[in-house]
C-alpha cells in the first residue's frame, strides 16, 4: 500500500482529530481486510477500504483506544441516539434506558483483557454506518435478554397459564408418503435465496408485506406479486415432482389437499423446535 494512498485515507477518515495516528489507522484497515477479504489482492483491498465508513471507523476505534476528543464527538452524536434506538426496540422507556446504559457500558469497556480495557467498539468494522451498527448491537442484546428472560419462567406463572391442565401433545404425524416431502423439498430448493427469505418472513415469521419490502429493499406491492407468483410456481413444481415420483395427476392433487389435515400439528411442532433450538444457541458472532 502506497504511502500516498494511506495518507489520503487517513485524511479522509479525520482520525487525526480523534487522536489516532496514521499507523494506528493502517492497523485498523489491515484488521478489517483480514476479516472479510483475507485472500484479496492489494488492489481489491484498496477498493474495499474505500467503500468503508472511514470516518466512523476512525471514530469508533479512537473511542476504543480511549481518546477523549473521540468520546466527546461520540457522546454528542450517539448518546441520545442510543436511547432512541433502544426505545424504538423495547417500546418502553425504562427498559430502553436500561438497555442503552448496558450497551453504553460495553462500548466504553467495563472489562479488561491483558491489562487493557476491552471496548465493544473494537468490533466495529465500518461495513455499515456506526449508527446502524449500534442499532444492530442493541437489537442483538435485546434478543439475548429476551431469551434469558423467557427461560426464567416461574412454576407459579406456568400454573397460572394452565400448563398442568393442557392436553398432552400428540405424537408427530409422519407423512404417509415420503414422496410428498421430497417433492416439496425439491420445489423449495429451486427458489432463489431472496424468494426463500420472503417466504420464510411471510409464512413463518408472519411479517407484513411492508416489513419484508423494507428489508429486501423493494415496494410491498412487489413483494405481494412475487408471493403470488411463487405460490403458483411451487404448486406446479410439487405436482410435477409428485408425478415424477410415480403419482398420477389426481393422486398428486389429492395429496396436496390432504396435507392440511395431518400437517397442521406437525408444522407447529416444527416451528417450536426450531425456535427452541435457536434460543439454546443464543450467541452471536461478536
Amino acid at each position, binding site marked *: 500500500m502506497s504511502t500516498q494512498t494511506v495518507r489520503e485515507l487517513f485524511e479522509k477518515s479525520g482520525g487525526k482529530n480523534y487522536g489516532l495516528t496514521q499507523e494506528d489507522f493502517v492497523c485498523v484497515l489491515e484488521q478489517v481486510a483480514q*476479516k*472479510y477479504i483475507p485472500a484479496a489482492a492489494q488492489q481489491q483491498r484498496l477498493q474495499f477500504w474505500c467503500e468503508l465508513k472511514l470516518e466512523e471507523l476512525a471514530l469508533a476505534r479512537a473511542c476504543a483506544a480511549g481518546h477523549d476528543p473521540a468520546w466527546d464527538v461520540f457522546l454528542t452524536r450517539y448518546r441520545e441516539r442510543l*436511547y*432512541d*434506538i*433502544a*426505545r*424504538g*426496540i423495547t417500546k418502553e422507556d425504562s427498559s*430502553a434506558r436500561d438497555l442503552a446504559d448496558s450497551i453504553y457500558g460495553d462500548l466504553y469497556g467495563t472489562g479488561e483483557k491483558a491489562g487493557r480495557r476491552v471496548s465493544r467498539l473494537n*468490533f*466495529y*468494522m*465500518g*461495513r*455499515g*454506518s456506526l449508527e*446502524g*451498527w449500534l*442499532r*444492530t*448491537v442493541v*437489537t*442483538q442484546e435485546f*434478543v439475548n435478554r429476551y431469551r434469558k428472560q423467557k427461560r426464567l419462567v416461574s412454576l407459579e406463572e406456568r400454573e397460572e397459564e394452565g400448563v398442568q391442565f393442557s392436553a398432552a401433545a400428540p405424537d408427530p404425524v409422519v407423512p404417509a408418503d415420503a414422496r*410428498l*416431502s421430497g417433492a*416439496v*423439498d425439491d*420445489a*423449495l*430448493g429451486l427458489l432463489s*435465496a*431472496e424468494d*426463500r*427469505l420472503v*417466504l*420464510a*418472513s411471510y*409464512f*413463518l*415469521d408472519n411479517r407484513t408485506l411492508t*416489513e419484508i419490502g423494507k*428489508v429486501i429493499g423493494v415496494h410491498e406491492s412487489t413483494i*405481494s406479486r412475487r408471493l*403470488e407468483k411463487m405460490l403458483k410456481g411451487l404448486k406446479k413444481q*410439487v405436482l410435477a415432482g409428485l408425478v415424477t415420483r410415480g403419482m398420477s395427476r389426481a393422486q398428486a392433487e389429492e395429496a*396436496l389437499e390432504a*396435507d392440511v389435515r395431518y*400437517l397442521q400439528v*406437525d*408444522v407447529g411442532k*416444527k416451528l417450536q423446535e*426450531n*425456535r427452541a433450538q*435457536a434460543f439454546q444457541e443464543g*450467541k*452471536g*458472532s*461478536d
Partner: protein
Amino acid sequence: MPELSNLLKNGLARASQEAGVRPPGVHTDAHPDADMLTAFSEQSLPADERDQLMVHLAACGECREVVYLMTEPLGEEIAAPVVVAVPRRRWLFTPQFGFVAAVAAMAIGIGIYMRVQPNINNQPSHEARLNAPAASGSDEKNTVTPNPDTTTPGIAAGAANPTSNTPSNQASNQKRTDNLAHANEAAPANATPQSNTGLKGADLRSIASNNSATNSNDGLKKKSVGEPVEMASAKPARRDYVNLEMFSSDAADQGQSGDLPSAPPPQVNVTNLTQARNQADHGQPMVFADIPNNAIKQSQNGGMALFQPPSARQSTGIEGKIVDLGKNFGKRLRNKRLAPAIPQEVTTTFAMATNAPALDQSAEAVAAAPTQKADASALRDSSAFMARGRAAGPAAGSARLESVSPAWKVDGGKLYRSINASEWTEFPAAPGVELSVVLAKGNDVWAGGAHATVVHSANHGTTWEKIALGEGASGTVLNIDVNGITVIVKTSAGQTWTSHDGGQSWVAVN
C-alpha cells in the same frame, strides 16, 4: 394472498434447519456479525455477499428476527407520527362554524342597517344645527316657555327644518305625539295646528306611558309633571322620561328596544319594530321607562341635560342581544364616521342657553349666552364658542374649525379662499407680491411669498398685516409652520426664521 399449505410450511422450516451456507467473513459460527447485518439492512453489501447473507437469513429465524427488529423505527420516530397523526381540528372549516359566522354576519349587518340608515337620513346637517338656535331664538315666546321644541336637543335638531314653526310642522308634531300615545294605532288625521300650542315638555314625557290617552291634546294637557302615570301594563311605579338621544341618533334603538311603556306587550314584533322605525325615521321623540325617580325633579327644570338615557336598556332573548350587538357596532361606526361636525355637548349648550343658561356652570357658557341669544352667526365666530370647541377635545375642536373655517390655497402667486371648497375667491392679502405658500390654523392665516414676504390674518382673512422677518431676510418663503405662538418660516435662500411670540419678533436660526 393465497395461503401456503402446511406441507410447504413444513418444508420451509426443514430447509431452515438444514441451512448450511454461511456468509463470507463468518468463520466461527453460522451467524453473521453485526457489521454484515448492518450493511445488509443499509443495502450497502455487494451483490454476492448479499445473496449469501440472504441464504442464511432464509434459513435462520434468529437472524431474521434481528434484521426485522433493526428496521423498527426509532423512539423519536415512534413519537413523531403520534404528533403528526393527531387530526387537526379544522374548526374554521366546519359547517357549524360557518353557520354561526353567517348568523353573526347577518346580525351585524342588520344591526348596522337599522342603526346607520335612519341616522343618515335624519342626521341634521351642520348648517341646520348652527341655525337651530337662531330659529328658536327668533321666537321669543318659544325660548321662554318650556316648549319641548326648544328644550330638547332632538327638537332643536328638528327646528333646523325651515318649516319647523309652520302650522303644518306643528301638525306633524301632533301626529308624532299621538303616535307615541297609541303605538299600535293609526295616527290621527284630524290633528289641528291649534291643538299643539299648549303642548308642554312634561306632557310629552308622560303621554307615552298613557295607553289610555285619547287622540286629542286635552288628555295630554291633563298630565302634569311628575304625576304618577297610569300604566296599562299595571306597573304604576314606572315613570317615563324623554330620551334625549331619541331625537338625534338613537331613536331607532329605542324604538327597537321593545320596552316602550305604550307598547302593549314587551315583546318585539314586526308591527312594533316597523312603527318604531317609522318614528325614528321622522325624528319623532320616543319615550321609555326605567328612569330613576329623582330624575323627574330634575326634568322640571327644563334642562335637557338632566334627562339622561337609561343606563341599561332592556333587551330580551337572542333577538334583543342581536339588536344590542348591532346597536353597539352602529354606535361605534357612527362615532367614527357619522359624528356631527359640532359635538353634541356644544349644540346642547347652545340650545339650552336660550331658556336655561344657568344650567351650564361654565363661565364661558354664561358669557356666550347673550351672544347666542342675539345671533347664531355671531355666536359661531365668538371666542367662547371656539374656546368651548377646544375644550371639547382636539379632535372635536379641529373638526369644528374645519367645518367653520374657510379653505385657503395659493394658485398662480395669488391667494384664494373658499367657503364650500368649490368656489374660490381671490384675496388680496399682499398686493404686488407673488405668494407661494399659505397656512391656516383656526382664525389665523399665514401666507408667504417672494422677497421673504409674510402676511398674517387673525380673523379668517378679513384684515391682513405684513410681517417683517428681520434684516437680511431673503428668498421666497417655502414653508410656514405654526405651533401655538411659535412660527417658523423657511425661505429658498436657506434661511429659517423663528418667532416665539406669534410673529412679533423674529430670530434667524441659521
